């Protein structure tokens, strides 16, 4: 049977309040006990003082009367005495009006009641004998009632002036004081307890309750923050709780996100695994198959079941097995996370499948390898294409190296990407491979490098080709030769300029011949012009080809005007 447990805050309250109540009660009782006695004593003393004062006042009245009689020398005068006695009695009676609950009575010779402030006072004293009492407090009974009295004796008239109070009146303030003390103590005590309860409820119970509810909510999975924050330590606790909720919420979000990502990842992986064009094998460290996707199976021509019966090393071409083992062992021992290598795998039908393997591992927390994941990409076609490309390149290289034209190509920064053999030799290098990365400044024609750079930049920056322009170029042997150069912008598949392609051939000899021819022409021209006779040359169509100075002088047409036009006489 489950024992019913009170809520936490109620138990706290009980555990806290009960000792407080007990201690408070004990202290109250002690206070009352030790305060009541002095209070009672004080009140009694006050009352006794009033009793004493009232009786002394009565005595004073008598003394004054006596002195008055003495002053008048009438102390033996009977009438005068009676008058003074009566006046004294009236004054004594009036004293009781000034002292609540106190009565005064005057006795003659200890017996006869001369006057009394009480109504219906007996004529004869029924109290105890007071013959030896003077200026003392006595307790006795009047009838059935106990009284507390103060007695003064006035010998001249043989009077006893008694001021007294009934016990019940005497004790009334004491009892009231007790009652007040107890009530006050209890009242204070209850107020303290009530205050404690309220304070506890307001500042401990309620916030604690909120905290507990919120915590319970968290336990149930509801990450709800506490909306009202108290002050003080609880406020701090609540803030921390809210912070914790935020943190949990954030983590939950992160977890959700992670899960989502994992799910996505898993979906992607599954998609890739199931439907990708990469073969994936998941094995254990001792090469036990865990999973293999369809692609891998098709790649190698096995069904999954057949594949699972094969060990990896049986699938790898023996000539690649050593490399594969070495890499695998490195991953095991050297704590690599992955490696890649190209390996030839054996198809079911015996042919080789060129593959690119990416091997990675999933480790346990202790860094031991749990799974090995091998991604297998069939690169057979690529290999073939590579081979074809290599072949093509080789032919192209042959062509480039064979033609007499120098060919070179650069990137956008005017660094050489390549060139043909002839160009390499013009540059002072032994092979086109040495060109790569160099600039004109690094080669034999460095003196012209700046000019070359300008032309290169013009082509690269504008995209406008420059064809068949003549330029000089230093040769490795120090000579300078003339070249006829063409440069075009080199573009990629997206038509972006990625560099330039340049060609040139040596026209030094041609240029020389041209210059010679020109010289000859100039010589001839001079001769013709210097001839004193008119000289006109025409071709078969009658177009003027030659017109000397004399012709000009004669006709007025300049050479420019005549040459090229039909000659008509």
């Amino acid at each position, binding site marked *: 049977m489950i024992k019913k447990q009170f809520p936490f805050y109620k138990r706290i309250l009980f555990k806290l309040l009960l000792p407080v109540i007990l201690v408070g009660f004990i202290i109250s009782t002690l206070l009352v006990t030790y305060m009541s006695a002095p209070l009672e004593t004080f009140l009694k003393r006050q009352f006794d003082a009033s009793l004493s004062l009232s009786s002394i006042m009565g005595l*004073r009245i008598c003394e004054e009367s006596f002195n008055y009689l003495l002053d008048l020398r009438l102390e033996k005068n009977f009438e005068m005495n009676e008058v003074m006695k009566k006046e004294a009695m009236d004054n004594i009676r009036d004293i009781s009006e000034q002292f609540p609950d106190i009565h005064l009575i005057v006795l003659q010779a200890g017996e006869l009641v001369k006057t009394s402030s009480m109504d219906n006072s007996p004529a004869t004293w029924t109290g105890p004998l007071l013959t030896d009492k003077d200026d003392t407090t006595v307790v006795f009974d009047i009838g059935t009632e106990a009284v507390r009295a103060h007695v003064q*004796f006035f*010998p*001249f008239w043989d009077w006893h002036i008694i001021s007294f109070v009934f016990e019940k009146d005497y004790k009334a303030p004491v009892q009231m004081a007790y009652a007040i003390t107890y009530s006050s103590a209890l009242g204070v005590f209850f107020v303290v307890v009530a205050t404690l309860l309220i304070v506890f409820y307001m500042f401990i119970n309620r916030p604690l309750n909120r905290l507990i509810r919120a915590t319970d909510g968290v336990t149930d999975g509801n990450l709800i923050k506490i909306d009202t924050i108290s002050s003080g330590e609880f406020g701090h606790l609540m803030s921390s709780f809210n912070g914790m909720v935020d943190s949990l919420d954030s983590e939950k979000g992160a977890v959700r996100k992670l899960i989502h990502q994992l799910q996505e990842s898993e979906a992607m992986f599954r998609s890739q695994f199931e439907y990708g064009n990469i073969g994936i094998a998941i094995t254990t460290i001792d090469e036990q198959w865990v999973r293999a996707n369809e692609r891998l199976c098709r790649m190698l021509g096995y069904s999954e079941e057949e594949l699972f019966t094969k060990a990896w090393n049986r699938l790898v071409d023996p000539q690649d097995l050593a490399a594969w083992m070495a890499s695998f062992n490195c991953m095991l021992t050297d704590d690599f996370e992955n490696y890649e290598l190209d390996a030839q795998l054996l198809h079911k039908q015996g042919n080789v499948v060129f593959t690119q393997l990416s091997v990675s591992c999933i480790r346990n927390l202790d860094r031991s390898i749990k799974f090995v994941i091998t991604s297998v990409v069939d690169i057979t076609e690529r290999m073939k294409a590579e081979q074809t490309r290599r072949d093509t390149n080789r032919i192209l290289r042959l062509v480039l190296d064979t033609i007499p034209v120098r060919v070179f190509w650069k990137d956008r920064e005017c660094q050489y990407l390549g060139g043909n053999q002839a160009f390499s030799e013009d540059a002072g290098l032994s092979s086109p491979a040495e060109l790569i990365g160099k600039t004109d400044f690094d080669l034999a024609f460095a003196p012209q490098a700046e000019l070359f750079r300008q032309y290169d930049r013009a082509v690269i920056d504008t995209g406008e080709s420059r064809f068949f322009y003549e330029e000089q170029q230093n040769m490795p042997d120090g000579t300078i030769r003339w070249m006829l150069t063409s440069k075009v912008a080199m573009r990629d598949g997206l038509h972006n300029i990625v560099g330039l392609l340049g060609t040139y051939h040596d026209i030094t000899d041609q240029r020389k011949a041209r210059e010679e021819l020109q010289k000859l022409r100039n010589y001839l021209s001079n001769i013709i012009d210097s001839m004193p006779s008119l000289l006109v040359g025409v071709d078969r169509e009658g177009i003027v080809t030659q017109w000397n100075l004399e012709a000009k002088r004669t006709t007025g047409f300049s050479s420019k005007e005549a040459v090229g036009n039909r000659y008509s006489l």
Partner: protein
Amino acid sequence: MEAILKWVVVSILGLFLFDSIAHSAEREPPILIGGTVSLEGTYQEPSLMVQKAFKLWIEEVNERGGLLGREVKLILYDDKSDKELTKNLYRKLIEQDKVDLVLSPTSTPLTMSASDISNQHKMLMLAVATSSGQPWQRSARYLFQLYAPANRQFIGLLELMAKKRYKTVSVIYNDQSGYNLDMVEGIKEWAKIFKIDIVYQKGYQNAKKELPGLLTEVKSVNAQGLINSSYPLDSYELLRLLDKGRYRPDVLALPIVPVSPDFQKNVGSIANHIFSPSQWEPVERIPFPGTKKFIEDFKKFTGHMPTYHAASAYAACQLYEQAINSTQTIDNTSLRDYIAVLDTATVLGRFKVDHAGMQVGHNSFIIQWQNGKKEIVWPQKMQTAQPVF
């Protein structure tokens, strides 16, 4: 310059004034006041106080311009506490010295002697130190009492004893003086009123010889109180015997000697709690006109606090002055008539006499020595301390 001129003028005026006064004084002879004081003997102690008071008043009255524009001169003789000598001296004062006024000697016996002469010569005498009614049992038309009568002086003490429920008292007294006899009568009367039994009562004449035996008897009856009515020498002897015999009743009362401010100094610790009647005390509670000034002047004049003897003597002088100033004469009969109906207040208190000349306006009170200090313990309205029994 102006200040100097003013001083010169004032001085000249002052000189003129002085000259006129001197001349006016010179015109009339001084008023002679005569009396005797007991510079030795039984009454020496109170009499010395009386003498000082007389001298103080003389000085003061002359400072005020004298009486009737005349300087007042004092003639005092030493009566040595002797009755016969006193009588002779007053005769001399009146007949030979031709004094205008007489002051009384100290004590009832001496006053009786002196007043015999003064009455014969119809000269006013104010009895400065007489409590007894004896002098007025004969015809003493020109004699007036200042003190409260002796037979009323112990009323207060007996009342205090009655309040304390004391029931018995012993009374011893020097029976040579009417003062003591009157006192004893008063004690008897009031003890009866207050229901106190006088269990032992005896008179004596020679204190030195008789007191030891009396005290043995007193001791044997062991009354709660002991009252000795006598003059200072007897009282000192009694106290010496009590101290020696280590006997002390609850209540011990003596007249005259305990009122001296030097009483404790004179007798030692036995002074503590001794009661005494007193006509007057130099305390602020005394409400009579001129009392405070008198106390200050007396102390300045003599270096001592005054007793009631001094106050009484000074009061007598005040009455003379008042009478003379009122009647504008030094005729003793006129002065006597004036005094006889006078109801006034002096430094001593109220002065009012009956037809015989005995004091009826002034009452005494009871003092008690407490811890080296003289306290008034009765009547209650004059109390400076509660009585200690």
